[in-house]
């Protein structure tokens, strides 16, 4: 990308070339259309300019022409739609083998937590060739995680998780922007994505000393007394959480929901919202008691209890045959 007059953004992810290919197709079609209209208007305006003694010829119109120039553009637009939808589907569907990274946005910074426990602010180090899934939430207003070189953007909302993913292809330092207006320093809420070769990345990662995220979560789990009710040996007052993540859960009111990240999150902050069938609404809310970072650690811990999957242990009320939902079902 030229530093003086950039005309095209860097291509640094697997998605970038796909988006660019579609964009070039759109540019070509639009260019042809624009040229067609411009040339037609210019030629007709000159050819039929007003000259003394020549009158305009009245033409009523033509239904055939109208239908033609409605159907053909519609057909072309459908190619836009289908191609765009295919790319969008991929953009919104993190592969199952993704490495997860937690992102907390606040006015006006990005806080990043790796599963290994590494924390960063306004910087995200990632290796090339690895699918990275971002699990994002905001502490205050709406932000948006935007990396032009990866062609990804996803709004980050308070009170829930949204996800995005990418696979970086080219080492380098790329812009991270906040794309949703969020107040005074909106334009300062940026940072860098640092893409490294896997071995460099491993070296960088080894430099940290903090405990893995799910370990922090495990400590919090006992610190907040969760383990008193959510027991792993016998049936406690709350459901056994082993193997719960990403499985269907039967609720008291008869609904079945997938226990995705947002479900685990809601169950901590607002436990009475979705009561598991057979249990009493006795859990107190932890809203205001856990920070977003602690919440992420707890969610990571609960998720870690499902790897490797241990089936339906302890969850008596779970439907007996519950095939593991493919990961791509839990997109927002």
């Amino acid at each position, binding site marked *: 990308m030229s530093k003086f007059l950039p005309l095209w953004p860097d291509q640094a992810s697997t998605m970038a070339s796909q988006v660019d290919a579609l964009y070039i197709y759109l540019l070509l079609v639009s260019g042809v259309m624009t040229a067609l209209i411009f040339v037609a208007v210019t030629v007709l305006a000159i050819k039929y300019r007003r000259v003394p003694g020549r009158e305009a010829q009245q033409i009523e119109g033509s239904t055939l022409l109208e239908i033609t120039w409605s159907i053909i553009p519609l057909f072309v637009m459908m190619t836009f739609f289908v191609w765009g939808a295919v790319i969008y589907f991929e953009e919104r569907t993190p592969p199952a083998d993704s490495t997860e990274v937690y992102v907390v946005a606040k006015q006006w910074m990005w806080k990043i937590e790796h599963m290994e426990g590494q924390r960063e602010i306004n910087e995200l180090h990632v290796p090339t060739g690895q699918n990275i899934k971002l699990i994002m939430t905001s502490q205050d207003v709406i932000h948006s995680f935007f990396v032009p070189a990866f062609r990804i953007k996803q709004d980050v909302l308070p009170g829930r998780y949204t996800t995005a993913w990418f696979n970086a292809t080219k080492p380098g330092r790329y812009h991270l922007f906040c794309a949703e207006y969020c107040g005074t320093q909106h334009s300062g809420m940026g940072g860098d994505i640092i893409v490294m070769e896997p071995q460099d990345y491993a070296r960088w990662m080894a430099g940290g000393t903090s405990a893995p995220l799910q370990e922090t979560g495990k400590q919090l789990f006992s610190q907040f007394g969760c383990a008193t009710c959510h027991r792993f040996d016998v049936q406690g007052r709350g459901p056994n959480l082993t193997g719960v993540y990403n499985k269907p859960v039967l609720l008291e*009111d008869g609904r079945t929901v997938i226990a995705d990240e947002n479900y685990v999150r809601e169950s901590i902050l*607002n436990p*009475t*919202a979705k*009561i598991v069938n057979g249990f009493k*609404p006795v859990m107190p*809310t932890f809203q205001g008691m856990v920070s977003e970072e602690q919440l992420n650690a707890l969610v990571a811990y609960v998720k870690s209890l499902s790897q490797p999957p241990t089936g339906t242990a302890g969850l008596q009320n779970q439907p007996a045959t519950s095939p593991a939902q493919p990961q791509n079902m839990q997109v927002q």
Partner: protein
Amino acid sequence: MHDSQTTTVEHEAHNPALLHHFADAQQQKNAASLGMWLFLVTEIMFFGGMFCAYLVYRLAHFNAFAAGSQQLSIWMGATNTAVLIVSSVTVVLAVKAAEAGKRKLLVGYLVVTVLLGMTFLTVKGFEYREKFEKHHVPGPTFKFTDTFDDNGKQIPVNPKEAQLFFSLYFVMTGMHALHMIIGCGLFSVLAVLAWKGHYTPGYFTPIENAGLYWHLVDIIWIYLFPLLYLISRHS
């Protein structure tokens, strides 16, 4: 589509109520009534936004909305529904009286309608007072501890979600009450004008249009009452 342009020659050229830019009284009346209907459409869209919010949140926070609904006084709501239905009848009778040229009867029905409207607002006032006393008004003093339904079964409720129910309750009934106040004002003015003899069997469009407005406000309540008060009661 109506084509009011092909009209017969009118013999009411001296009708004082006919505005200069209309060809005849029929055109003027048609214009006024189409205008009123369009205004009612905008009112429906206006309340539609709130109904939409209510439905979305009711689905999202079902328990809290059910529990909140239990706390509304069904008797006051039902009384008000009855009052409004009766007032719609008196409005219809007022229009009939205007059509028949019975001035005193017209004024009488208009006054009764205003009184019924005020009855509604008074009952609403008592309801609001009850909410204050029970700390069900959203804000720092909001409390919500009553989590039992009619059958004594415990409903788990997050107070913040219950507060959302009461927020919508106050916004929706408040907007409705505002429309009631405007309607009462409108009918009071019309009653005075009717007393002075402004309306004749040939010209009573304002009475008709105000009546349409009143019916709409009435209908909105007919939706609000079940949605807010009744929908979660099983007993």
